[in-house]
């Protein structure tokens, strides 16, 4: 039995009320929760702000209003499942809404870092459990019996005498009761909804084409805008001649806009944007503005370096050859370990810039009048957008409403909400409601890319083929991708990490599983080669390292749990029947920990007319309690397909500051025929609080793929995308 506090310092996380037409409503904070004994200093102020609601109507229907933005990670289904579980209602009677989202009434709306479930877990359980407790107390009062004689079952309250009533029957009374200070949570083994596959709550709307997304927003009198941004990083606007475009049918105006914040004001981290001065074409319909855009004459001039991928390659290579001024982490005596090594394995891996390319291009609706700003669209960071909008528009923040729509994918892209600010500035300047629509080209050449990376690994093996030293030197645009405290840190006595940064004016951003999206794959590929050099099976070799990290860890700051890490590897080994030889099938394995979850994968590759084909992927996942197995599988499947696709096919390259790819004809994304034929996912059942799934499925897969490709072709891949390698026929 777990007790959880709903109150701290006489302030409650929950607010209950009776509904006008009967029923009850509980307002609560999506993130707030504390256990008895937690300290006041650990409790953020905003936890006392209501940002979610739970409503129980007279007819017993339960509505849960979710404040979390939905980018495809399906929190809109999973999180209400948690509330419904503790409330003990039938999922059939639960309606999930994402209504009335704005930053004034709701705080901390953010979908990033796979953390939604992890952060919401306790607070959602608390909300459900509190409502249930209040219903029980109301029923006890009605029947004049002690609460201890009552039980609940799927929305019904039962008394030991046999009589029963529905939640709806006492909801109005319950709404007037005091919120209990402490409530009891269910034992996970009694879960009925959590752990069962529940379909995406928006699926019926999605498959019938109902308006859900930012791009679907439509308002009376709304104009449409497109932007023109510089064609290259390091360029800025020089001159604009819009006479011809302005004369075209349906065109309202062609203007220049700036989203620069005024002097003295602060930029938010999410304001990353290489292009702050733009041309905007505004008119009646999308096609008219798209056509007029082509008739606008703009000239550009350089205002900083015009970088090329070839220079990046030269500069990154120089960096990974250069000793860093200071080690980022050093354990033992790496120099000595390498000096005494019987064998040294050294490999360097490279990855290009990548665009996020969510399927729904960037867009935002804005209606800015003299005293109000209404912004509606696909953003993951409304609270930051609100701050920037306030300073850019010159308006107090409480006059700005930001509503989030469902998002047609994010992958990190919608953390950077410059397009919302742009829409607002256009609306303010034009004096009309406007929907800004980016073309695919505008988005793909806009930046906030996954930065290009280069990392060199060196391993020292002694004469007994024991890994005695590991040296990782990483470099990347805007920072090194290496995580100094992750595995194999802690498993190697002599360990050294050095980091370098490549300065670049090409804007970088968080891209699904930042840095891990590269590090996981190359670490797995490198360890495979080291295992080979040591004459060991790649799984056994890693298990030895985990044993070392469990029994005799090196250093104190190793941010992973080696037992759980080894657990998924053992699980995939068993499930995939590792070691069994199937003729024609080439295998590769990989394992990684990020975003608080552990994922191990085995790729089964076949050669089909000299072309590699992923036949099957086996996954073992430890993300604690699996709230919704259907979605959990979907996230893992999607993540690994994403990871195969980007390491195999995708790249953004530059010439004179200009991206050489701009749409799906020259930026290759994985397609149906390239996806694995089959994916089998297993989850570790350990009852630990749930952790994220939106990201962890992606990182390891490129490693398993690299290792399987090596087994299939006899050659190792070092440079992404692999399709550039003559050995891998696309």
């Amino acid at each position, binding site marked *: 039995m777990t007790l959880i506090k709903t109150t701290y310092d006489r302030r409650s996380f929950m607010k209950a009320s009776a509904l006008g037409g009967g029923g009850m409503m509980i307002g609560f904070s999506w993130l707030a929760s504390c256990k008895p004994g937690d300290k006041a200093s650990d409790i953020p102020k905003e936890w006392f702000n209501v940002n979610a609601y739970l409503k129980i109507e007279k007819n017993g229907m339960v509505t849960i209003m979710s404040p979390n933005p*939905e*980018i*495809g990670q*399906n929190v809109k289904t999973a999180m209400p499942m948690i509330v419904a579980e503790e409330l003990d209602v039938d999922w059939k009677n639960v309606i999930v809404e994402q209504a009335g989202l704005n930053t004034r009434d709701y705080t901390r709306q953010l979908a990033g870092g796979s953390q939604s479930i992890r952060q919401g877990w306790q607070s959602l359980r608390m909300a459900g459990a509190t409502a249930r407790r209040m219903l029980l107390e109301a029923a006890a009062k009605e029947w004049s019996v002690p609460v201890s004689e009552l039980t609940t079952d799927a929305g019904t309250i039962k008394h030991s005498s046999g009589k029963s009533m529905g939640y709806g029957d006492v909801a109005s009374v319950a709404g007037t009761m005091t919120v209990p200070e402490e409530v009891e949570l269910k034992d996970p083994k009694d879960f009925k909804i959590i752990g069962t*596959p529940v*379909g*995406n709550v*928006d*699926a*019926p709307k*999605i*498959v*019938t*084409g*109902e*308006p*859900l*997304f930012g*791009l*679907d927003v*439509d308002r009376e009198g709304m104009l*449409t805008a497109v932007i023109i941004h510089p064609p290259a990083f390091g360029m800025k606007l020089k001159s604009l001649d819009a006479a011809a475009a302005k004369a075209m*049918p349906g065109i309202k105006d062609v203007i220049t806009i700036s989203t620069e914040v005024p002097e003295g004001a602060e930029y938010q981290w999410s304001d990353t944007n290489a292009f702050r001065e733009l041309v905007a074409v505004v008119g009646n*319909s*999308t*096609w*008219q503005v*798209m*056509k007029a855009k082509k008739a606008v004459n703009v000239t550009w001039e350089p205002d900083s370096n015009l970088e090329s991928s070839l220079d990046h390659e030269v500069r990154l290579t120089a960096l990974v050859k250069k000793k860093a001024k200071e080690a980022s982490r050093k354990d033992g005596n790496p120099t000595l370990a390498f000096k005494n090594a019987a064998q040294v394995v050294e490999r360097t891996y490279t990855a290009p810039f990548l665009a996020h390319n*969510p*399927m*729904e*291009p960037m867009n935002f609706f804005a209606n800015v009048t003299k005293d109000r700003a209404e912004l509606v669209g696909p953003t993951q960071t409304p609270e930051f957008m609100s701050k920037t909008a306030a300073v850019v528009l010159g308006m107090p923040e409480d006059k700005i409403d930001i509503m989030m729509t*469902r*998002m*047609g*994918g*994010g992958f990190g892209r919608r953390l950077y909400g410059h397009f919302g600010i742009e829409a607002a500035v256009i609306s303010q300047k034009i004096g009309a409601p406007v929907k800004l*629509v980016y*073309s*695919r080209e505008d988005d793909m050449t806009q930046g906030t890319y996954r930065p290009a990376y280069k990392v060199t690994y060196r391993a020292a093996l002694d004469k007994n083929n024991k890994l005695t030293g590991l040296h990782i030197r990483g470099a990347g645009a805007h920072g090194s991708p290496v995580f100094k405290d992750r595995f194999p840190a802690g498993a190697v006595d002599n360990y050294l990490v050095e980091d370098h940064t490549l300065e670049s004016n090409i804007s970088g951003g968080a891209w699904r599983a930042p840095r891990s999206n590269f590090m996981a794959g190359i670490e797995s590929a490198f360890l495979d080669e080291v295992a080979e050099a040591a004459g060991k099976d790649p799984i056994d070799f890693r298990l030895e390292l985990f044993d070392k990290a469990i029994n005799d860890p090196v250093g104190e700051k190793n941010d992973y749990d080696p037992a759980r890490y080894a657990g998924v590897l053992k699980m995939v080994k068993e499930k995939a029947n590792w070691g069994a030889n199937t003729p024609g099938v080439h295998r590769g394995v990989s394992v990684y920990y990020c975003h608080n979850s552990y994922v191990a994968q085995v790729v089964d590759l076949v050669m089909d007319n000299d072309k590699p084909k992923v036949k099957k992927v086996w996954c073992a996942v430890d993300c604690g309690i699996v709230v919704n197995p259907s*979605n959990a599988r*979907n*996230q893992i*499947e*999607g993540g*690994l*397909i*994403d990871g195969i*696709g980007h390491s195999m096919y995708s790249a953004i390259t530059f010439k004179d500051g200009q991206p050489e790819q701009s*749409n*799906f*004809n020259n930026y290759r*994304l994985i*397609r*149906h*025929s390239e*996806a694995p*034929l089959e*994916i089998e996912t297993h989850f570790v059942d350990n009852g630990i609080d749930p952790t994220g799934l939106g990201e962890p499925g992606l990182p390891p897969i490129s490693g398993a793929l690299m290792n399987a490709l090596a087994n299939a072709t006899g050659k190792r891949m070092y440079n992404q995308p692999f399709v550039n390698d003559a050995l891998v026929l696309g």
Partner: protein
Amino acid sequence: MANYNLRINGKMTQVDVDSDTPMLWVLRDHIKLVGTKFGCGIAQCGACTIHLDGEAVRSCSVPVSAVGAKAITTIEGLSENGDHPLQKAWIEHDVPQCGYCQAGQIMNAASLLDKNPNPSDEDIARGMNGNICRCGTYTRIKKAIKTAAAEMS
């Protein structure tokens, strides 16, 4: 600008637009049928797939002037109550993640099943290759198409 009489989801509708306006924008901006999505604008992603006389086409690359008397079907008109076997199978297999590409996937799959009621894995891969799913729901799409095919036969 010119007037066009279009048969959309069984209903005649008149629009007054430039003759080169792609059907995608006619549907979205003028008829307010926004189930058909914009993904690339150059016939590379399939998000905008509709049917012309039952044949899947990329509406971003079909100007309104080329439609003539052909019957247009969009995701909103694929079935009366959202219960086309593909729509049901999509829900059964919990296919959508972000959901943005799925209308196009379903429209393309419907035309595929029309021509090939019992497609193999390879037929599906080939037939669906013009539809990108950035969220990577490909393996589920394949299963859902097979389920729908079984129901329809």
